[in-house]
């Protein structure tokens, strides 16, 4: 059953897509039908899988680094008041800067390899983590903090043993968002200057009107994204068994 549902969703989505294409009559060069895409998927599977591997690596690296930097950023910002005042505006700005403006600068520093792409992905991924953990760290139960103070705890010990565990649910929330945006992070990273990866393939296919190939790449990306999301979600839930978890639908 647990494996059946995604399958049903999957088939349902595909069917809806096919019907939509048939009913609305979208031209295939704008939205190809699933059949076309399946064709491209089979015909170009070698090319697609090769690029998918590159992108997956970038996603995973970007996510790992993004979460790491995000956590680090939140810790630094919340631990050092001056860092907060100075870093927060910089981080906000970093989110507002379009990639293509930074791309030449990044390539200048990091070259054309994987590094600049991963850096780009990291830049996109880390902010939700930072923001969520930062917020979570602020919302610790004041009673527990008082207790810790009387226990002669250093600021670092309070952070480590009280604030961070208490902020883990918020952190998990941020990591979930980060996981969902990680694929787009990697794809955008590939725009910076690359000759491989699904993002490259998509831009390329798009520019050359191989729309079926583009959607085949998109399809692979979507599968990776969903698989990654639910894997991370499951891992996070396991981490937070102590956290009460109910849904409004159960009220």
């Amino acid at each position, binding site marked *: 059953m647990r494996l059946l549902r995604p399958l049903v969703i999957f088939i349902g989505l595909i069917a809806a897509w096919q019907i939509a294409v048939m009913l609305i009559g979208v031209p295939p060069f704008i939205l190809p039908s699933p059949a076309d895409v399946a064709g491209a998927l089979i015909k170009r599977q070698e090319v697609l899988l090769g690029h998918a591997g590159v992108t997956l690596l970038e996603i995973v690296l970007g996510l790992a680094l993004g979460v790491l930097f995000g956590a680090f950023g939140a810790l630094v910002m919340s631990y050092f008041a001056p860092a907060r005042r100075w870093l927060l505006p910089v981080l906000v700005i970093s989110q507002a800067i379009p990639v293509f403006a930074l791309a030449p600068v990044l390539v200048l520093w990091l070259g054309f390899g994987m590094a600049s792409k991963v850096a780009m992905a990291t830049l996109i991924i880390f902010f939700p983590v930072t923001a969520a953990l930062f917020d979570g760290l602020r919302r610790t*139960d*004041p*009673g*527990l903090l*008082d*207790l*810790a*103070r*009387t*226990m*002669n*705890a*250093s600021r670092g*010990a*309070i952070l480590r*043993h*009280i604030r961070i*565990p*208490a902020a*883990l649910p918020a952190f998990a929330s941020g990591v979930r968002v980060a996981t969902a945006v990680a694929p787009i992070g990697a794809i955008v990273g590939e725009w910076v200057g690359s000759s491989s990866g699904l993002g490259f393939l998509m831009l390329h296919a798009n520019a050359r009107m191989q729309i079926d190939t583009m959607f085949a790449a998109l399809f692979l990306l979507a599968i990776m994204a969903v698989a990654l999301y639910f894997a991370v979600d499951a891992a996070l839930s396991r981490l937070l068994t*102590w*956290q*009460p978890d109910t849904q409004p639908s159960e009220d």
Partner: protein
Amino acid sequence: MTDTTSSPHTVSRLTVRVRGARLAFGGRTLFDGLDFDVAGGQWTCVLGPSGVGKTSLLRLIAGLTSPKTGSETEGTVSTDDGNPVFHRVAYMAQQDLLAPWLSTLDNVLLGSRLRGEPPDRDRAHALLEKVGLGANMSDLPAALSGGMRQRAALARTLMEDRPIVLMDEPFSALDAITRVRLQDLAAENLSGKTVLLVTHDPLEALRLGHRIYVLAARPATFDRVIEPTGAPPRNLHDSTVLGEQGDLLDQLARADTEGLVS
């Protein structure tokens, strides 16, 4: 035990002196110019109507009032050896304040973990056994009953082993029998320490206190001190205790009419 301030044996029987204490929350003055001694090595019990400021006084002594919490504080809190009170108190708050992500055992070991000391698991086990949580050491707080949570918090406080112990209604969620047993346990474990106990139960105060104060009125002041005879923990069936109980209840009733609940 490398940290000398946390060793109870080098500096014991500390008297805590509160002088000219003022505490107000945004205009509402709880007390002002309050002088108060917690006698070294003894149990001092504080009673008083709900909302009079007992918890606030305890927090003031523990050094937990800061402008951040919306309170204005004045006055000094000192000990007779001249060292600050802060970091020599074990504080048991009115709420149990168990960390929801830690097992009962880990909650009891929280202090040593926070100080980076090696945890004394044997002692924690023994204490948890004594408070009746031997079978619940690995349970999360959410799986404990109200009284069990309070007992875990008590075990954690006893675990701290500090010269000054501040406890805010530590037995309020316990049934009468368990309460007596844990009072005895606390009395035994905290003998020789300077203990300040806030309680609502006059019998508890009479059973445990060397001195009993009643905090009353707003701004709050201390009424006359009661010093029950005999060494605590006392036997409650003792007829003198029952007489004193009547006294104390009268005093509390008086405190109440001056007081808050209309």
